Every structure is written in C-alpha cells, then in structure tokens.
C-alpha cells in the first residue's frame, strides 16, 4: 500500500517537474549579461552624486579639501553633524523650534490631505452623481501645470485670508494636492463594489462605509499619498509665505547654513544628508505599497 502511494507521489513529482527548463523564447544569456552590466553602470552613475554627498558629510574637514579628492571617506566621523548641531544651537531661534515647525507642517498637511482627498476620492470612485466626471477631469487638468503658475494669486488669496506668516499658508493649500486625489480615486476604483453594498445592507451609513470598510482596504494608497505629500512639505522652504524667523522651516534654516561659504563646507554636506534622508527612508520602507498603488495610476483618456 505504502509502496503504491510512494509510486503515485513519484509519478506526480515527475509530472509536475517541467520537461524543459522554462525559458522565454526571446531571451539569451548573452543579452541578459549585457543588460546587467549596462544597468549596473547606469545605477552607479545615478547613485554616485548621492554616495558622494553622504561621504562628504562623513569626511573630516582636512579630507574635504584634499586634492586629488577621494570619493570614500578615509576616516569617517560624525563631526560635521555635531558641528551642525552646535551651529544650530547658537542660532537665534533654536534648532528644536525649526524642527518642530517642519514636523508640524509636514504632519498636519499630510494628515489633512490624506483624509480630505480620500473622502473626495471615495465618492468620485464609487458613486455617480451630476458633476462627478467633470470635477475629476478638472483635477487631472490641474496635474498638468506646475504650482508656480498659481503662486501669485495664491499669495494674494492667502493675504486676504490673513494667513500669510502663519503655518496655515503652507498647510491648507497642501490639503488640495490634485495628485493625491487622483491616485486615491484610481486605486479605490479597484475595490469591489459588492463590499460596499454588503456593508450598506448591514445598515452602515456612508461615513461608516468610508471609515470602516474603504479606508482600511486602501492602506497601500495611504503610503503613496503620504510620501508625495511629505516630499513636498519636508522640502518646502516656505520663504515666500512665512517671514517670521521663529516660524520658518528646518530646510530653510539648514540652507542658510549651507550658504555660509567655504568655512561651512562640512556642515553644508551634513545638511544635504539631513534634508534628503527623510523622503528616501520613507520611500525605502513603503516601496511595495507605493508600487501597488501606482499600478492603478493610469490615465484613461
């Protein structure tokens, strides 16, 4: 009996094993190798400036000015970063205040954007009502021009509202980023409508459906909205809308240090790393979710 079973398993194994190693017909090993070499080369070129920037931040001062220059830091130290903190500590507005400003603007802007854009995206994706298509078209048109076009009337408008020189001048406009609504709507369209109908039959109202059913199911899209929003807000110098030094953002303050000339070279390099590390880290940790969202990003007509 057991022997027979063994035989069956063996036959099955034989059957399951592919007869030839599956290889797509239009691929050759030479082509693959050439491809790898080419990609590695390009990847090196792409990464070089970033590697260089990180290494400069780790170089002690005497090494920074060495000629011929080295790419990799010979004696890596964190001196530049500690120098940066010392300089920032001596500034009129404390480092922690700048940090608070940026973190507050980024967090508030991103959270508001996520909630408001998702609410809009939910009804645009799942319901049909007069004006819904027109509104969505308008949003896609808004993605077609840069924010610079609207900057002057925006300034006038914020001035009228009395929001100039407050955090709101940066936070509130960030809520209405067209990209977020667009990606969220496209992603929500992939949700099965039966899920929503089932919830409705169970007696949930629209808000319950939105917060309990839809939002937990579109978590990948959250991350995507978050990274685009954080990218924009974290790097926002906000120099045109905010005048008071104590409300300015970290990036602004850091770039002032960077502009300090040759004596600040080491700290300038450290600044570059501090500024770029946050968006890149968020991307590294949320890459798979972002790619999942982008799969539905297509623009149909």
């Amino acid at each position, binding site marked *: 009996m057991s022997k027979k079973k063994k035989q069956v398993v063996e036959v099955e194994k034989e059957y399951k094993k592919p007869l030839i190693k599956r290889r*797509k*017909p*239009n691929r050759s090993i030479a*082509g693959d190798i050439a491809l790898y070499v*080419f*990609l590695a080369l390009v*990847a090196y070129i*792409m*990464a070089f400036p970033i590697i260089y*920037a990180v290494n*400069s931040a780790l170089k002690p001062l005497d090494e920074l000015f060495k*000629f*011929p220059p080295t790419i990799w830091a010979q004696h890596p130290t964190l001196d530049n970063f500690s120098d940066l903190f010392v300089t920032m500590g001596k500034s009129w507005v404390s480092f922690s205040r700048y940090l608070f400003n940026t973190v507050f603007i980024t967090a508030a802007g991103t959270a508001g954007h996520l909630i*408001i854009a998702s*609410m*809009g995206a939910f*009804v645009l994706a799942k319901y049909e*009502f*007069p004006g*819904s298509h027109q*509104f969505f078209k308008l*949003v*896609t048109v*808004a*993605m*077609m*021009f*840069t924010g*610079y*076009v*609207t*900057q*002057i*009337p*925006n300034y*006038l*408008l914020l001035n009228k509202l009395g929001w100039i020189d407050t955090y709101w001048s940066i936070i*509130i*406009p960030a809520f*209405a980023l*067209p990209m977020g*609504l667009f990606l969220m709507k496209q992603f929500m369209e992939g949700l099965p409508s039966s899920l929503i109908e089932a919830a409705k039959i169970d007696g949930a109202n629209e808000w319950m459906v*939105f917060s309990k059913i839809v939002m937990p199911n579109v978590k990948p899209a959250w991350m995507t909205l978050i*990274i685009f929003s954080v*990218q924009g807000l*974290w790097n926002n110098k906000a120099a045109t809308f905010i005048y008071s030094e104590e409300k300015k953002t970290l*990036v602004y303050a850091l770039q002032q240090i960077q502009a300090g000339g040759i004596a600040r070279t080491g700290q300038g390099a450290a600044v570059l790393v501090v*500024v*770029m590390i946050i*968006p890149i880290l968020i*991307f590294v940790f949320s*890459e798979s979710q*972002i*790619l*999942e*969202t*982008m*799969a539905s*990003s*297509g623009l149909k007509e």
Partner: protein
Amino acid sequence: MKEWFQKYITLRKHNAQVAWKKAKRSKMCYAFLAPYAILFTMFYVFPVVASIYYSFTYYNILETPRFLGLANYINLILQDDIFLTSIKNTFMIAIITGPLGYIMSFLFAWLINELPRWVRSVAVIVFYAPSIAGNCYVIFSVFFRGDAYGYVNAFLINTGIIDAPILWLINPQYMLPICMLVILWMSLGTGFLSFVAGLQGVDRSLFEAGYMDGIKNRWQELWYITLPSMKPMLMFGAVMTITQSFGVCDVTMALCGYPSTDYAARTIVTHLFDYGFSRFEMGYACAIATILFLMMILCNKAIQSLLRRVGT
C-alpha cells in the same frame, strides 16, 4: 428654426431637472466631496482664473488694479528680450530633457522588470532616489566648480583635453547643457514608478499568445504587447514629465545663480519670480504665468493625442 430652438430648450430643461433630482438624491456624495472641492477651487481653480484676469491689468498690490488690455502680453513678446531668452531656454530644456527623461524612465522600468524581485526593488530605490533627494543636486556645483580643483576640470586637465579650467557654471555656453544633465539625473520620478508598476501588471498570458503568433524578439514584444497594454501609464507619465520639464527653475537657480550670467539660464518660472516677488509687478507676472499655463496645457493635449496612437 424656432421650433428646433424650443425643442432644444425643453430638452435642456428636462436634463437639468433630471440632474437636479439626481443631485438631491446624492447629497451625501457632495458632502463628502465638499471639503476637497472647496479647497481645490480656492487654491487651484480660482488662482488660474485670477491670474488670467490680472494679466490684463497693471497691479502692484498697493494700488487697485488698472485695466491695460493686452499691453502686458504685447510688452512681453515685443519688448522683453529677457522673456524671449527665457522662453527659448525653457523650450530647449523641455524639448531635450522631456522626451529623453520620459524614454529613460520607460527604458529603465522595462529593463529592471525581469530582474529578480529583490534586485528590482533595490534598483527602483537607486533610480528613484535622485528625484526625491531634496536639494542634493547642489552637489553638482562641486563637480563642475570653475577652478582647477573642480572634479571635471581636474579630470579634463589631467587627461590633457583642456589646458585651462572652464568656468562651467558662469560661462553661458556651458550653463544649459549642465543644467540639462542634472535635470536628466533627476528625471526618473513619479512617471518611472508608474511605469514600473504598470509593467508588473501586464497580463502574462498575452506574452504566451504573442510567442505563438510569432513574435521574434524583445522589440516586437515591446511594441506589440507591452506598450499597448500600458497606455494609461504612458499617459500619466507624460503628464508628469511635461509638468516637470516646463516648470524647471530650482536647478538653474541653484547651479547658475539668480540672476545668471547674461540671463543664459533664465527660465520662464525664474522670470515669473523676478517680476512677481522682486519687482512686485503682479499684472506682468500673471501674464507670464498665463502664457506658461497655456503652453503646458496645449503641450499636454498634443502629447496625449500622439500617445493614443502607440502600438496601433
């Protein structure tokens, strides 16, 4: 004629009534959309309209706007030499970095598509990082420094190609090419991510069917199967690329200075900043913004109608 007109009106009335009834039934939807719609109108729709309105006036914030008619546009095109330079520069940058960046985005997304999973995700990070690395591009001003200690100069002198250092970022001859290089380095952005994701989503069975139908090489596979099934992503990527390449200003301002030598690296957006936030000639600046807006929308429409023909 009159009868036809009346028919038309009744039809319209009927349609409006139906729409109104539907709208009444879907109050909930409007309530959900309202917060976004209000903010969107305030910060995206209204500014465009306002900018078109102000472009016909003289406005300096302090006085009330004075109506000028088309004078701003006429001045821009006929008298403002620097604006013409800036248009030329913007177009140069857009025409070269736009298509190249777009093709690069697609090419690399396509090439890394078949790599093993973890290699692919590392590659995506490496290629995408430059575009989110904040102002990391200022590192290029170290590479292209004007004295003999700049890397590029040192390399060229050591190999004997040149015998005196070149002022890369001050000599108008070299400014734009260097800016383009930097912009290309940063061009694998949102569109690239969209392509990577789109390529992953192409239906595998299409390829099998293609092999049966006698597709011979990778290029045919690309043109007949991959591209047509990614059309929506191609559209999205095009929108992103155009928006980016017409809005160039950060890179040129950071590398070549603001204002740059002989205005050789001035773009439309830099010109807009100059008039809007340095000279406070808001009417004039709005005229620049309107022209930029129209350029972008027209270009987008043109490219989209072009892309619809892909793979047919």
